[in-house]
């Protein structure tokens, strides 16, 4: 197992945001966690990333418990996140945003190569590399947020609602990119309200409701599950 979460509970003030959540990801997988707004999806990713501290439970990264480590330490271990709502540095240029993603790395030549490679892959970022990132459209910002997260060369990429607020055409583009990322060797943990898209792209999935995992299985099977269809796929 690359990452195994065991009996994880997290409180958000007085609210129990996650209760005894357990799941695991193998190397090379795309795993999705789907659920409605407020189910605890972002809390889950924020806890794995070290922005929130769990009340109890373990987060095993290659068999070592990393629960309670700071966000700075977690990135250095090889877990990187593109957060909900993209959170690009709006006042910095597109190029600076990409560059800062490699903050934990010191191999400057390789960093430059990676930047060039991503700029070639995403011509829109190349075209706008000297513009303020906040001036780009939502879809462009999402691509930038993903590229920025990839710049640390993570083994595991956490994606929080990459389709949020984007048009169907752009969502398709984003999801194509997610498949490419896996092909290039990065494991992906994806959190989505857009269950249809998430189940399409992922190998396995978990359904999170009110802070608990209520269903799990192969994504293709979950997509056929009557309950899932009714609750998350619009009948």
């Amino acid at each position, binding site marked *: 197992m690359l990452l195994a979460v065991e009996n994880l509970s997290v409180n958000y003030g007085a609210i129990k945001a996650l209760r005894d959540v357990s799941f695991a990801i193998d190397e090379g997988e795309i795993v999705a966690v789907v659920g409605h707004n407020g189910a605890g999806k972002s809390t889950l990713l924020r806890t794995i*990333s*070290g*922005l929130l501290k769990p009340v109890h439970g373990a987060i095993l990264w290659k068999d070592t418990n990393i629960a309670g480590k*700071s*966000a*700075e330490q977690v*990135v*250095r271990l090889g877990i*990187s*996140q593109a*957060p909900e*709502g993209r*959170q690009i*540095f*709006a*006042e*910095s240029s597109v190029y*600076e945003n990409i*560059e*800062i*993603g490699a*903050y*934990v790395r010191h191999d400057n030549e390789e960093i430059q190569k990676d930047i060039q490679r991503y700029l070639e892959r995403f011509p829109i970022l190349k075209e706008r590399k000297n513009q303020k990132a906040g001036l780009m459209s939502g879809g462009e910002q999402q691509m930038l947020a993903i590229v*920025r*997260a990839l710049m*640390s060369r993570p083994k595991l990429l956490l994606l929080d609602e990459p389709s949020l607020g984007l048009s169907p055409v752009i969502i398709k583009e984003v999801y194509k990119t997610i498949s490419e990322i896996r092909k290039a060797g990065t494991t992906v943990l994806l959190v989505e309200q857009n269950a249809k898209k998430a189940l399409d792209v992922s190998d396995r999935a978990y359904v999170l409701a009110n802070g608990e995992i209520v269903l799990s299985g192969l994504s293709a099977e979950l997509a056929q599950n009557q309950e899932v269809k009714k609750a998350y796929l619009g009948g």
Partner: protein
Amino acid sequence: MDWYYFCRQLINGLSVGSMYAMIAVGYSMVYSILYLINFAHGDLYIFGTFLALALFNFGLPLPAAMILGAILCGLIGVGIERVVYRPVRTANRIVPMVGALGAAMILRTIAQVNWGASQIVYPSLMKNRVIKLGADFQINSQNIVILAIGIGCVAGFTFLINCTKIGKATKCVMQDTHTSSLMGIPINFIIPMVYLFGGFLGTIGGVLMSSYYSVINIEMGLWGTCKAWAASQLGGVGSFYGAFLGGIILGVTESLAAAYLDSAYKDAIGYIIIVVILLVKPEGLFGKKKAVKV
């Protein structure tokens, strides 16, 4: 219109403005990271200015005393951040604000016990020379030096923030601390650095100011706070260059108002201009409008 007179007043205003600016920068940067009005900043920089005076009386030349005092003051700022602000960083903004007032009171009391509450004559940083540029056009070398130090600070800051890794990281922390830590940026190193920088520049500004007016008084902390806060509001809170330009504009306006109206109107005119600008452009001249998710 007497152009020589105007130019003299303009240079005077520019140099006073760059002193305001150096004090304002500390406010503005701390605010943009933590949304905290750091009330302790005024008492901190005047404390540093007193420290520089103490070091001077100890036998150091004033420029060296200024730099050493600025470093010490920066370190005190780091200490205040660690002890007073960091434990309540995620609390309601009222909490660190009260903490800031407490820290200000402590600094002020220590300064008062050590150096007294009355005005003290401050040594001048350099001998003022009158530079003659024509029959009736002359400028003071002091103004030029102050202005040069101000420009030097901007240039130094621009280099640091755009060309060094730690500077680029600071730029990100100023925009969003959570996302910065997701990038692996050590925010608990960067934030104290901002306090160090703010305290350092503030003390440089304070020493220049005190030696320019030849006086220091514990009340100048509060006075400087008002000027600096006004300057950073004017330029747009959260923007380094905004704070700097805000300080310059305030200084120039005050000097010209004093020269052409009456020196008694000096302070009032500065604030009137600020009110007018903020009515027209509430985010300040160079401020950024932030989209906040609610």
